[in-house]
Each structure stands twice: as C-alpha cells, then as structure tokens.
C-alpha cells in the first residue's frame, strides 16, 4: 500500500532474519542430500539447484539489509553452485565440506546480526577456497559494466562481479530511480512493490537508499537507486513496475556480451511459515469483517423481534452470543495480523542517524528503545516519514557543531534519543529528543513576524506553520523548522493524534508524537453534494455516469390516496437498464448545486442497483476514516469522518444505506 521511503532495510530486519533462517535450514537439507550423493559419487542436480536458490535469495535479501559479509559468502557459493549445476550437478566430498563450512559461517553472522552485535567480516581463506573449488567455473571478467560515479562506490566486489557476470551472459544492466511520493503512494506504488515487481522480470543487484532534498513530491526526502540485470526492454520493465519509462537508464558495458543462456529456475519454491502479505489484502479482510459485524446486529434485532412475538428463542440467543464471541475473536485476530513491532519500525533509526552524521560531519549517537509495543502497519507507514523529519531536524539544526558543544561543556558527540511507550490500550507515545541547543524562541518569532511565544505549545504552533519551513538559512540558527508542518500534518491530520514539544535553551528539545495504534484507511471517491463535500468507499460504487437530460424518464406513478402528486419516480437509462434515480442532496436535506451535467453514482445493494445524483465528482484518494463515536452524530448512512487536508471534518457516507431496499420507495417520493 502506501509507503515510504527507506523503510525497507530496517523495517524488515526481523522479517529478514526469519527468512534467512529458513534459507539456511533449507541449505542444510540440500547439503545433507549433496553429502550422501558425494559419498556414492553420483550427481545431484536437484539439491544443487535448491542450495543455489537458497543462497541466491539470501544474497539478494542480505544486500538490501546491507550485511556485506553474508553477501560475499553467498555470492561465492552461488558462483560455485552455478558452475556445478552447469557441469551436471556433481560435487566432490571436499567441495560439500567447504559449502558446509560456508553455511556455518553464514549462520554465525546472522546470529550476530540478530543479537545486534557487529558482524564479523567474511574469512578471506573461505572466500578464496570457494572461488577456487573444483566445480566452480568463474565467469567474471568477460564483460564489465560501466557505472556512474554516484553508484560505483556503493557497490561491493561481489555485486560488481554479479553485474559483470550478467553482462557476459547477455543481460542488460539497468539503473532505476524511484522517489516515493504521496502521488505514487496513492497509486499503491512503493519501494516494496517496485522491488517485488521488478524481481519478476529482472535480477536485482543492489537497492540503494539515497537522501534528496525534501519537496512536496518527496516529503520523505528519500529516493532509491536500483541496479538490476535483465533481458527485458525498458518499456516492459516500466509496465511491470508501474514506473515511468524515463526512470530506467541502461548502464553500458565494456565488452560485447557472450551469448550464453541463463539457468532456468522454474521449480516451485517450498512453503514457508513466514508470509509477506500486501496490506491491501489485510484491509480487505478488515472491511469484510466490518460487514459481518453489521450482520450480527441485524441478526440480534431479528431475534429480538421474534422474542417480542412470543417465540421461544433461547437456543437462537445462545447461538447468537457464541457467534458474537467468534466475531470478536476474529476481529482481534485480523487486527493482530496487521501489527508490526515498534522496535522493527525503529530499527532503521541508527542507520539514518549515521547517514545524517556523515552528511553533516557532526558526531552523533543514536539511543533507540522501541519497547515491546506493536502498532498497525498502516500507522507505521504513515508515521515513519514524520520520524525521519524529526531525526533530520535534530541532527541538521538542533545539534551544535562539535566545537560549540565542547565549549558549552557538553560531550563532543551529540545524542539523539528515540523512545516509544504505550499510552493506554489505544495510543502510542513516540518521542525524539536531542541534547542540542534548544529552540531560540526570539529567532523563530522574529522570522515568523509574530510575538515571542510564551509556552512550548505556542512555540510549536508557530514552527508548524506552513511556509516557515521554507526559510532554511534562518532555520539553521533557530534550530528547528524544516518540514515541521509535515510532521504535524502526519500526526494530527492523517493519524488523528497529537504533536507535543518541550524545549530548553542549551539543554535540548523533545518532540512527542501521540498516535493511535490503528486506523482504518479506505480508497475513497470524493464528491460535492448540496454545497458539502463527502467521501464514500470506492468499493461501494459500481460506476460514475454523467446524467444526460435525455437519459432520464419519469415512470408513471399512481397518485397517493390523499391526492398527493404521486411522486413521479425518475429512472435513469443505463446500458439498457432503467435504474431508480435518487437525488442525494434531497435525501440529505441539502440544496443541490450542480455544476455542468450532474453525475450519478451507481450503487448496488443486494440485487438492486440505484443511481444517486450528486453535484459533481472531485476525485479519488486514500483517506483515514475516524469513527464517529458520539451518539449525537451517530446516524445511519454516515460511517465516519475524515480529513481531506483542510482541517475540516468530511463525512464518510455509506451509500448502500441510501440504496437499501425498503428505504428506496420513501426516498423516491422525496425526489
């Protein structure tokens, strides 16, 4: 679904470790099979391929997480196994021994990574032994891919070799640039989806997160450069990845590639106990569950009606209460499946801080404690860019240069502390603190042309004003301001949480985000109706049509017994079908204000379709739905409210309620 940048390395660390463990287990199994085959001196192409695949996948994953020693070892193993596969899958006992040693070496390093310890470098002698093992047919050096400077330094030896090998096999080396933006997120395009889609048509050699200036198009301030090998055209890559064709740049290689077919890998992968699921599928499950909850209410009402008529419903009631419990359990199970540990979200913080330290030349240390709390994946995705902003501000602007710190009696190394705690059962408190200079109220006030704020809350109000962030030279001296309006927007508007500030001159600053553990996000259509904006889940709308005057007819309708005008029923002709046409503004007691041809939303409820007339369509977007909890505003047809970014609540309509049979008749008379 949506996403942000830079998220994947740290975000998936726990997932990576779990997956890596499974690849190692599979490698062990293949090794056992290879060992038995070696003892009798026979070839074993299947375990060779399995081991190759496990190492190949592990290498790809490791290079994304940046565990270089694992990448180097798996790369050499992969090369060896590729050679073995080509020569029929026969491996000598010594080579199998060597591969076992390599797998043990991988195991050691992955355990170090899991324990948060430094990962020891790959043993040179092991790499050399793998490279010179009898079955290895080294293919390096046939061709060389020419890389732009920005990339060349970022690729390891093994990756360069992989590129060379690919080029010599006749594959093209391609660079892909992707900058996550709200617009791409809205289309469901994010680094994970791009990576996964590209992986189906290309071999990903390297994914590099790059920082870039923060702009409206790139609120995360991050972009990705990917280097891949493929036989596909740029157009095909663009189509598969849903990126612009211009995002792909071919990297020239120095020698004419030899034509040698790639190894076919067509066997089905084995099942795993760890599943990666698209968030949209989980959203879907949750939405369906919502339907079940509504159904439960209807059942309970029907039972109450029966009881009121004197029917014995004891058995029915017992079943209903058990059913209620099941639905509740199911709901919490679905909610649980969407949770990710906060510690996983924060795992990338030290990396980001290290990067910032490098780019600013300030020595900084990050102290991160995510605690044991978990939060909804979609909340995690939204809160991450805010976190990145806060970290960047802290390092860029809040922390003084080393010399200044020493003069102020502080340790030379700046300290960024990130903490996360549960607050009650539904909120999290995430704080980012620095031991920098604190915010200079006078400077901020002067810059904003406002009186000096007396409290931290007033100061926060001032620094989160949009526009203040653009004056970045002044920001350096005042300490804060860059993108703070974005942070506020995420915390308050997108997530319905709070942003708090506490700062002390000379001591440091703490920003605290209070965010809900879970939110509901839907893909919605927004439209104007009777001077008001509404949104409705896109799933409820079958079609949107322009209502041409000629397409509307009034059906003959008998006058009411009391001599009323008989409420001519209007019908909309659409694809040979006549649909009841209902004016939504009238239903809602609003005055229609159409601009141009009115539009109708075709809504389906059970087997009946109905056309709901609205004034005009605005667009389609993802919105965060907040439940309307107060009984004063709990009305049928309104399922919640959202903020489209203007700070004003916009109602989320459940159009099905208006198209419901039984209500339709009465509603038709209203039009």
């Amino acid at each position, binding site marked *: 679904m949506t996403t942000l940048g830079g998220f994947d390395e740290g975000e998936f660390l726990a997932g990576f470790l779990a997956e890596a463990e499974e690849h190692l287990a599979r490698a062990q199994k293949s090794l056992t099979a290879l060992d038995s085959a070696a003892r009798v001196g026979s070839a074993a192409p299947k375990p060779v391929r399995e081991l190759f695949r496990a190492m190949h996948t592990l290498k790809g994953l490791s290079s994304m997480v940046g565990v270089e020693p694992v990448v180097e070892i798996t790369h050499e193993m992969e090369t060896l196994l590729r050679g073995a596969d080509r020569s029929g899958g026969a491996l000598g006992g010594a080579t199998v021994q060597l591969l076992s040693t390599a797998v043990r070496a991988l195991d050691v390093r992955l355990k170090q990574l899991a324990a948060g310890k430094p990962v020891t470098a790959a043993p040179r002698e092991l790499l050399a032994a793998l490279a010179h093992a009898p079955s290895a047919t080294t293919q390096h050096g046939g061709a060389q891919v020419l890389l732009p400077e920005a990339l060349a330094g970022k690729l390891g030896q093994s990756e360069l070799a992989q590129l060379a090998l690919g080029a010599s096999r006749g594959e093209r080396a391609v660079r892909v640039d992707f900058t996550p933006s709200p617009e791409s997120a809205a289309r469901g395009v994010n680094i994970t989806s791009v990576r996964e889609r590209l992986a189906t048509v290309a071999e990903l050699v390297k994914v590099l997160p790059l920082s870039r200036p923060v702009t409206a198009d790139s609120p995360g301030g991050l972009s990705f450069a990917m280097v891949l090998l493929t036989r596909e055209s740029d157009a095909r890559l663009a189509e598969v990845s849903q990126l612009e064709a211009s995002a792909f740049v071919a990297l020239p290689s120095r020698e004419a590639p030899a034509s040698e077919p790639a190894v076919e890998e067509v066997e089905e992968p084995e099942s795993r106990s760890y599943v990666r699921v698209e968030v949209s599928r989980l959203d879907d499950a949750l939405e369906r569950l919502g339907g079940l909850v509504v159904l439960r209410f209807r059942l309970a009402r029907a039972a109450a009606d029966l009881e009121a008529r004197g029917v014995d419903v004891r058995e029915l009631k017992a079943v209903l209460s058990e059913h209620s419990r099941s639905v509740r359990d199911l709901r919490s199970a679905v909610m649980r499946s969407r949770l990710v540990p906060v510690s996983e979200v924060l795992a990338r913080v030290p990396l980001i801080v290290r990067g910032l330290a490098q780019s600013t030349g300030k020595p900084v240390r990050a102290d991160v404690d995510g605690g044991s709390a978990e939060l909804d994946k979609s909340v995690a995705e939204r809160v991450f860019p805010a976190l990145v902003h806060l970290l960047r501000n802290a390092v860029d602007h809040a922390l003084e240069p080393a010399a200044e710190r020493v003069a102020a009696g502080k340790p030379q190394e700046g300290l960024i502390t990130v903490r996360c705690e549960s607050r009650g059962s539904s909120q999290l408190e995430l704080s980012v603190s620095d031991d920098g200079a604190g915010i200079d109220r006078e400077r901020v006030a002067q810059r904003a042309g406002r009186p000096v704020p007396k409290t931290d809350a007033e100061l926060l109000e001032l620094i989160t004003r949009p526009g203040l962030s653009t004056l970045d030279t002044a920001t350096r001296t005042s300490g804060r301001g860059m993108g703070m309006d974005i942070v506020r927007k995420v915390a*308050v508007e997108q997530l319905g949480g709070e942003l708090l500030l506490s700062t002390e001159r000379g001591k440091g600053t703490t920003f605290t985000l209070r965010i809900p553990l879970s939110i509901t996000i839907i893909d919605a259509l927004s439209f104007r109706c009777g001077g008001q904006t509404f949104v409705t889940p896109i799933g409820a709308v079958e079609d949107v049509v322009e209502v041409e005057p000629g397409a509307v007819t009034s059906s003959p309708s008998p006058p009411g017994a009391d001599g009323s005008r008989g409420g001519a029923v209007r019908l909309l002709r659409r694809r040979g079908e006549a649909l009841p046409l209902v004016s939504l503004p009238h239903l*809602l007691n609003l005055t229609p204000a159409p601009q141009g041809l009115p539009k109708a939303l075709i809504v389906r409820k059970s087997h009946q379709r109905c056309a709901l007339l609205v004034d005009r369509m605005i667009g389609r977007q993802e919105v965060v739905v907040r439940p*309307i909890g*107060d*009984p004063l505003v709990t009305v049928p*047809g309104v399922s919640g409210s959202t903020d489209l970014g203007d700070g*004003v609540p*916009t109602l989320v309509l459940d159009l099905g309620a208006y198209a419901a049979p039984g209500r339709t008749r009465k509603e038709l008379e209203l039009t």
Partner: protein
Amino acid sequence: MSTLHILFRVGEADYVLPAQDVEQMESFSGATRVPGAPPYVSGLMQIRGKVVPVVDLRVRFGLPAQDISLDSRVVVGRHGDRRVGLLVDRAREVIKLAPDQFRAPPDVVAAQAQGFVRSVAQAGERLVMLIDFEKVIGREV
C-alpha cells in the same frame, strides 16, 4: 471553597460550566453538517486534531438560530469519554463561584429550561445558571 467557572451567554441569559469540565474554547467558523442528526446539532468540528460534535445551545434552548458572529464561541465540555462542543453567543469570562452560592432554580426557570438548568447562582449583579451538561448533550443510548 470557590471554584472557577466558565461564563457564557446564550440569548439574553448567562450560563456557567465548571472550568474543570471544560477542555477548551474555540472561535467558531462553521461545522460540517451531519444529515440525520438532531436539529440542535450544528455538526462536526475538528479541534486540535479531535473531531467533536457541536450542539447549538440557542436551538437546544428553543431560541431562534442566529448567524455566526465574531463573538460566537465553542465551549468544549467533557463528560466521561465524550467531548462535545457547545455553540454559544459569547464566552469571555471566568468567574469564581462557591458551592453555597448555588440554589435550586426558581420554578419558572426550571419549567422553561426543560431541566437543562441544574441550579442558579448570584454573581454580583448577575444571575447565572449552571448547565446540566450531561442532559444537554443527551445520555448515551
């Protein structure tokens, strides 16, 4: 022991709510109408990230609705988990009132106020009415 009360005006009368039950006061520039809600509900307002329903006290008290003015205020009150804004004509003052200043409302006030007034107090020359917030916002269904 006198406690702080928020004083506000609706029509020609002055009302109070204990300050401890009031979360904040905001100026009012309109609310999002909620079709199907009771007529005295102006709609939804977003106040510092929270979405709260707003009750128009003029309508609730049976007075003719009035256009929004610069003086219009929303007094956000708290009752248990609920937060509801009260749209009033004016809210500027905070006054101290002691429990012994409050009396039961005179019959004529009680009858007219439909139970929305819990008690009355004399504050200087003014007679102020203590609102039954829970009753105004309606009990949970």
